[in-house]
């Protein structure tokens, strides 16, 4: 079983393995210093391979063909100020460690170089082969840990962004009536990428309950952002007093104007529960039908295609269903049942009604039992996000929910 709450992080594969031999490139215009440097390294640390160039312009072609671990840069190159050359290398080779060589008595330049992105500095003429080799090894390790820290910070940012999106996609239904209870669940897919599942619910002044669940096709932050727009748009349209039959059509206009690529669509199911809790009107644009415990799917015989795929000009008049006594219904996204079973096949929506009955043995639908049923059947985890919302009407008195 996978644990959807955990996000794993592995080092990016561009970080080379620790035991690879390092290629060091010296950028130095003085032939004498170049020879001294090569000899000093060869004696102190023969595993470091050294190449020498006299200008930065010769360095960059080399990095195209060979994997350079470290550049040793003489800050005193003619023609450019040393820091210009350093800035150029830091920008062009963000994964390569840099050690600078400064002149005698110029430790100031060394510290400045560190601030500009070098990993270490050496004072020319003051360092023997072992010191230079140690400095190069240190610089490579330091660069590697800096890259890891950056990648980790980026992973954390993505995770934080996903949590923000999840909160915006799935708000707590604003319902206060004591005779109705709500139970919502959201499970992230095994990929960890948030998708565009959304739901929302509102209680209007007259006691009418309005509820929506939807799913933007595809996975990723664009889809999730579109889901956020649709959820907020739905709430605005409902609060603005738009007729329920008009809400999804207006929402489709919103989708058409907001979708970034032009082929995004969303399945959306809109429910209107009358103030006496005795009827529900389902308006369905391509979404799996809600299921009423003890009765089965509540279909919208006048339903249509998903929002964003307009096949005809039909409206959404909806289909009304009676609700008797205490009742419990569940709306969900297709991630609930689109799991691979041990037969090798991916389950279909027809599997849901019997699972709902099993999860409603005590009257109200138990959201965790329903999710647990499919989780137990999924041999390779959740392929897609799951959003699920159970609405239950309790009757007063003992045993009222039966």
């Amino acid at each position: 079983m996978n644990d959807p709450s955990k996000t794993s992080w592995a080092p990016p594969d561009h970080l080379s393995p620790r035991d690879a031999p390092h290629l060091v490139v010296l950028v130095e215009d003085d032939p004498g210093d170049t020879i001294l440097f090569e000899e000093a390294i060869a004696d102190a640390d023969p595993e470091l391979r050294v190449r020498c160039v006299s200008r930065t312009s010769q360095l960059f072609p080399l990095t195209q063909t060979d994997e350079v671990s470290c550049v040793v840069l003489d800050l005193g190159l003619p023609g450019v100020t040393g820091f210009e050359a350093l800035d150029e290398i830091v920008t062009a080779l963000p994964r390569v460690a840099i050690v600078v060589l400064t002149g005698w008595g110029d430790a100031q330049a060394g510290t400045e170089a560190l601030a500009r992105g070098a990993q270490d500095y050496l004072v020319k003429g003051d360092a023997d082969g072992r010191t230079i080799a140690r400095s190069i090894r240190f610089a490579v390790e330091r660069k590697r840990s800096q890259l890891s820290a950056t990648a980790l910070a980026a992973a954390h940012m993505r995770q934080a962004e996903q949590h923000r999106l999840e909160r915006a996609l799935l708000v707590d239904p604003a319902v206060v009536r004591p005779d109705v209870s709500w139970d919502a669940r959201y499970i992230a897919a095994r990929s960890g990428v948030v998708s565009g599942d959304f739901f929302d619910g509102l209680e209007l002044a007259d006691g009418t309950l309005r509820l929506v669940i939807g799913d933007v096709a595809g996975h990723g932050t664009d889809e999730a952002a579109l889901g956020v727009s649709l959820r907020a748009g739905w709430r605005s349209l409902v609060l603005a007093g738009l007729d329920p039959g008009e809400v999804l059509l207006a929402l489709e206009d919103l989708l058409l104007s907001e979708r970034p690529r032009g082929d995004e669509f969303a399945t959306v199911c809109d429910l209107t529960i009358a103030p006496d809790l005795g009827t529900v009107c389902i308006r369905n644009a391509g979404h799996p039908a809600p299921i009423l415990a003890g009765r089965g799917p509540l279909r919208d015989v006048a339903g249509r295609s998903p929002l964003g795929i307009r096949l005809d000009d039909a409206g959404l008049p909806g289909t009304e269903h009676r609700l008797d006594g205490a009742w419990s219904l569940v709306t969900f996204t297709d991630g609930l049942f689109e799991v691979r079973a041990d037969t090798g096949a991916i389950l279909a929506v027809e599997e849901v009604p019997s699972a709902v009955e099993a999860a409603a043995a005590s009257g109200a639908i138990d959201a965790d039992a329903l999710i647990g049923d499919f989780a137990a059947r999924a041999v390779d985890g959740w392929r897609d996000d799951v959003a699920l919302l159970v609405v239950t009407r309790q009757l007063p008195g003992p045993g009222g929910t039966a």
Partner: protein
Amino acid sequence: MTIGAPHFNVQIDSGTEPLRVVAEGELDAASAATLAGALEQLPVGGTGVALDLSGVSFIDSSGLRVIAAQVQRSEAAGTAFSVSAASDAVRRIFEMTGLTSLLAS
């Protein structure tokens, strides 16, 4: 871990009118790009496209999105597009999503 995930294949029968595109396997988030790539490189215009899904055992919303995009492209080009020979599993998913009118009867 993936257990028994069938391969996904797209084949284009050149010379047929309308152009017949045969897909086989599971059309999901992982394979949708393969079909999208095949459909996008078809010539615009011509006698239209018939997508054969008889060998497709599963289709999810990512797959439907590729088909929806082809509906848009065909409408823009003024050519015909139909989904032919859907398997029972695919037919049920088209019914659930209100897209049965895309299926050739």
